[in-house]
């Protein structure tokens, strides 16, 4: 290392020899304090020389610059959204890049007064929770079968599951829309007009199916890693087959189940296509949170600060979930994909 540094330093010392000779006595000292550049170099030139003499430093600098760049680009939009939310309605045109156009947090209260925004968020939560439970139950059974059992047609069935996740929701939408708008007499005791449109079912049934394949793949990976001996032991102890699944395999794969659950919840909560099309948008019709946010585009005036405030309120639950469960998300996304 130090050899190279001397090589690099020498030509420059010769080039601006006049000064270097003037401090001839300092020449040996140059080696000792080699990190210090010669005195007459410009700041940038000196920095460049350091980088050349020590490439690791250049790579480290790039690393820090990249990290800061990524942090700023991912987080800045949220910061700016907060600035818009804090700006009073009258001075919305004054919102700067870094500063609000005034200060008035009343928007965070107004969103609940002008519309029942809490009801929209509740609807979203309910739909996401039901879908998550359904996906985990159904996905556990399927994941167990694909991960641990041998049977004819396994690969064909697995492929069928995979293929469904290739198709766009639009390819399913039209028949489902007809199906859910049809009045089914058998449902009349449960739902007033007998059709599933404007009920949570119309959103969580399609979404459970659409996000089921990912969960099956995640659970399959986790279940297949449980040693056979544990399941056999439970069977010898006298549990049923299903008992062994739900008392031994599922608890032992708790991290996997949590991963699949978190990913399903986030996906359903964030979904747009079915969520925006399967209800008429009224809070009483189980319209999810996205309708609430879009409703602030009022008839006479667009309430920008309320839209921003509502967005912040609606993003908080997922943001907290990500902070708490980031390891699960990372492992889930990667195991789901690697399985492919």
């Amino acid at each position, binding site marked *: 290392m130090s050899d190279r540094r001397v090589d690099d330093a020498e030509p420059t010392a010769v080039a601006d020899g006049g000064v270097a000779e003037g401090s001839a006595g300092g020449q040996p000292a140059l080696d000792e304090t080699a990190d210090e550049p010669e005195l007459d170099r410009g700041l940038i030139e000196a920095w460049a020389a350091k980088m050349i003499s020590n490439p690791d430093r250049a790579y480290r600098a790039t690393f820090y610059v990249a990290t800061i760049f990524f942090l700023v680009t991912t987080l800045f939009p949220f910061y700016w959204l907060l600035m818009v939310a804090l700006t009073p309605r009258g001075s919305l045109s004054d919102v700067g890049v870094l500063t609000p156009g005034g200060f008035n947090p009343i928007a965070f209260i107004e969103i609940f007064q002008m519309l029942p925004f809490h009801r929209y968020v509740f609807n979203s939560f309910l739909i996401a929770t039901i879908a998550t439970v359904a996906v985990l139950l159904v996905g556990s059974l399927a994941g167990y079968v694909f991960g641990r059992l041998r049977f004819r047609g396994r690969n064909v069935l697995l492929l069928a599951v995979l293929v469904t996740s290739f198709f766009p929701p639009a390819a399913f*939408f039209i028949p489902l829309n007809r199906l859910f708008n049809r009045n089914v007499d058998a449902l009349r005791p449960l739902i007033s007009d007998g059709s599933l449109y404007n009920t949570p079912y119309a959103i969580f049934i399609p979404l459970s199916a659409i996000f*089921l394949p990912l969960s099956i793949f995640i659970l399959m990976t986790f279940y297949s890693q449980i040693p056979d001996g544990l399941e056999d032991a439970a069977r010898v102890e006298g549990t049923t087959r299903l008992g062994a699944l739900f008392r031994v395999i599922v608890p032992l794969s708790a991290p996997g189940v949590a991963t699949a659950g978190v990913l399903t919840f986030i996906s359903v909560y964030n979904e747009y296509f079915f969520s925006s099309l399967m209800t008429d948008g009224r809070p009483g019709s189980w319209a999810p949170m996205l309708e609430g946010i879009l409703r602030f585009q009022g008839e006479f005036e667009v309430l920008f600060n309320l839209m921003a405030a509502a967005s912040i309120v609606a993003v908080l639950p997922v943001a907290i979930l990500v902070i708490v469960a*980031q390891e699960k998300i990372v492992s889930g996304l990667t195991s789901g994909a690697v399985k492919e």
Partner: protein
Amino acid sequence: MSTDTRSDDGGFGLTSPLNWLETQSEEVYAYVLLAPAFLLLAVVAFYPLIETFRFSLLANELAAADPFGEFVGLDNYVALLTGNTPFTQQFVAVSLAEGFPFIQFDAPFLQQAIFVTLAFAIISVLFETTIGFGQALVLDKDFYGRRWVRVSIIIPWAIPIVIQGMIFFLMFNPTIGFGTDFMQWLGVFGSNPLSSSTDAFIIVLVADIWKTTAFMALLILAGLQSIDRGLYDVAKVSGASPWQRFKYITLPLVAPALLVAMLFRTMDAMRIYGLIDATAGCETVPSLTCLVIISLESSRRWATASAVAFLTAVVISGFVVAYLLALRNSNGGVA
């Protein structure tokens, strides 16, 4: 149909079906456990897919109670592909032609939608892969505060699409957002970017890159972390520079994971709808899914909408097949 779904796993807590299950072979047991999953998939995916295809072969019935008429074969597809389908939004073609120099004035609406969807998918996936690789390389290092850097990189991926749309809608709103001024200062955008097709396309692109790069980063990171660290030590000892280590070790070994990640992203990008609907609106940036909704809601052409939906599925499966072939080749090359 849907009543069947619920009654199926209704026998769950009963003892006699459980006893019956105990006596069956492993194969029967497997099929029984798979039944709920496949019932759900059948109701929501398989049956609608077939129905969509069947609908697309029927005539549009604009006035009658039933939106589908008699069997017309492939007429809907022919009309779509030759540009003879009368979309009510046909006038959009004019504003599109102004914005997109590469779209002809009289280009059929479907071709515009296919163009927008493919351009969006390809450009966004390329950018997301590049930036995601950068993020993955940062996250692959061990440094103080790595956990928090990772959280902040993941957060955009986890936010609802409507909020992602809202952020960019506000940012490029001429009254309150700074985005329009900034882009005009650069000399790129017009005065109201969200209603111009080119500008809105770029905004949607940037919004998508902002949100989903994290997904690419995580998948690439998984590939990076599966690389044997010993290889780097060997390379270091033999005097390879960090760039050479990246080029000859990291890149080839991470390639399969990279292709899988790109496959997932491309499929997802080709379904783009919500982001467009929440920012610029489907009339300004028509993607294929947008076209389904437009023909359904504003012109009540259910059969045409089905044909567009099925074509979307066909285009996506074309991409999937191409990727799978590439993936197989790259695996063959390594092994």
